[in-house]
């Protein structure tokens, strides 16, 4: 009997295994971390959107979320810190047939790489940018970043963060992104549906996903992983198409989730063809 169970267990294959470099598992993410959930939502959306996976690649920067590209069993690139978006831009421009996904963290995309984000959105480069926002530099040990809430404690702000964090959807909208949404890793079906939509849309799509970092953010701010998920359930409200200026990150007031921007600005390549390739 025990042998039977063992045999059947050894045959169990996760439905997403074919998209993962299983030889690199176990992954580095901590118990209670949200990145794996977002990564799996992204993989499911890649399948359900029916994009050609042979022509799909993922680019990550540095950090915990940046490890995702290394686990994906497609063409994937682990770039230098902050540079995922310019690297992805090069891929897309050289081979416009590619579906380019940038999967990286808040520290990488908005602190050290913040400049590239606004220019990627301004040019409206055809790519999907998924940002796992855990409010902190996780991999380097929990230092303050550009998304850390005011007064939050980190290893470099032991008495609390004095600076205001970015409102990421507002930044994306103001910079020119075609599609902007925000979810938490608890809202997994809606998140997956939005990633699916983003993958098949033209232009620069941006999805912010809130996810707990119990090890570095949670411990410092007396918030365990389950409590963070309760916050995601109790302190969020779904309001599609709301004015992006209302999307500040304030858990006391409540966090607004949903799809906020869905527009059809011409893409980088369309603009280039129209301006620089006059017949």
């Amino acid at each position, binding site marked *: 009997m025990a042998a039977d169970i063992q045999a059947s267990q050894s045959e169990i294959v996760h439905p997403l295994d074919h998209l993962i470099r299983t030889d690199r598992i176990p992954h580095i993410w901590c118990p209670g971390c949200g990145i794996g959930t977002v990564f799996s939502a992204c993989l499911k959306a890649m399948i359900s959107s029916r994009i050609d996976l042979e022509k799909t690649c993922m680019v990550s920067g*540095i950090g915990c979320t940046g490890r995702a590209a290394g686990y994906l069993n497609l063409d994937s690139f*682990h770039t*230098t*810190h*902050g540079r995922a978006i310019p690297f992805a831009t090069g891929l897309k421009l050289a081979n416009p047939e590619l579906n380019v996904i940038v999967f990286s963290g808040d520290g990488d995309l908005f*602190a*050290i790489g*913040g400049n590239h984000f606004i220019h990627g959105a301004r040019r409206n480069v055809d790519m999907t940018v998924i940002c796992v926002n855990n409010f902190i*530099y996780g*991999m*380097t*040990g929990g*230092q*303050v970043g*550009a998304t850390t809430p005011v007064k939050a404690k980190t*290893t*470099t*702000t*032991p*008495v609390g963060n004095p*600076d205001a964090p970015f409102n990421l959807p507002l930044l994306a909208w103001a910079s020119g992104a075609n599609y902007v949404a925000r979810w938490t890793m608890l809202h997994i079906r809606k998140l997956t549906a939005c990633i699916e939509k983003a993958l098949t849309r033209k232009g620069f799509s941006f999805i912010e996903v809130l996810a707990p970092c119990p090890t570095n953010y949670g411990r410092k701010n007396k918030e365990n992983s389950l409590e963070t998920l309760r916050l995601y359930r109790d302190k969020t409200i779904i309001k599609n198409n709301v004015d992006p200026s209302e999307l500040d990150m304030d858990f006391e007031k409540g966090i607004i989730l949903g799809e906020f921007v869905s527009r059809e600005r011409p893409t980088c390549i369309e603009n280039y063809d129209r301006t620089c390739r006059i017949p």
Partner: protein
Amino acid sequence: MTARSKNIKVITGNTAAAYAVLRCRPDVVSAYPITPQSELVEQLAKFHADGLLDCEYVAVEGENSAQNVACAAVMAGGRAFTATSSYGLVYMYDTMLQTSGYRAPLVMVNVNREPPGIHAVYSGQQDMICTRDSGWIQIVVENCQEILDTIIMSYRLAEDYDIQLPVMVNYDGYYLSFLAESVDIPEQEDVDRFLAPLKEQPQRMKLVAGAGTGCGSHGIGMGFVEYRKKHMAAMERSKELWDKIDQDFKNEFGRGYGGQIESYRCDDADIVLVATGSAVGTARTVIDAKREQGIKVGLVKLRFFRPFPVEKLCHILKGKKAIGVLDRSICFGWNCGPVFQEVCALTRHIGIMPMLSFIDGLANMDITKEHISGMVDEIYKASQNKPYQELTWLP
């Protein structure tokens, strides 16, 4: 008067660096974390939060900003500190050139780690090598006590009126950044006294409100050349001054490191090994063992990498039968280690002799006693006019 403080704590290299910065009373610290340096900026944040470090602590968004903030803080007349490693060092490279070009006496720590190319969160000195022509004074140290002492000495050197150049203090990531050993933390008043001579010097160039000082304008023609010549001359002057500062430090605190280089059992040696950083400690024990076996081998610990201690090295190496150089980095295009290449350039002063390049310890590969023993054997073989291999990769 010699200070006799014995405030021993068992701390890591990063924490030792933080204590040194604390004692030097910077006005501005610009901080961006990177493995394996993060603990240093965290420790400074803690000192700041505890009210011990009275400075402006700026948690910037990347290394390029870290270097700009620190450079400008120095230009405004303050004392500044920043620290980085690997990817971070090369990300701030353009501004490093600006800092040295402005002759801004900034002191920065670089915790050695392999830079980009192949992603490696491991120790290696390639990052420092990538920036060797940046016009910065580059110092490499061996242990946690030396980290602390060298940072204090570096402010005396950088801010000296005759020098006014930025100084980069390098120590091996992992091997020193996270190694805890006993470190004597000097008293504040003793460090204040050691840095006091800087206050007696003429005012260095700085931005003064209302003075209308223009910085960074185009250097045209001979103006540019003049500037470069002065920069180079200050580099040369720093060599002798560093030896003097080291002696002053020894008088004050009872610890000296030999200035630009430390020569170990070289006087009567036939062959010499040149090494840098944390590997020197291992090398010293091997040299002792080889001496007991009757091999007359000496060791040179290179502390100054820029400027290169040409005169000191020539004095020691002249007349030796063979020289080996241990590098924790590589020199693309020369098929050897970078320090080896520099030592080879001395032959125009000291004549031709067998020279051997050993590349070891890349990406956290341990430089073991066995490795160094093998190197000494090879150098010895070469000194006996036997055929030898010029470049050896270890392990």
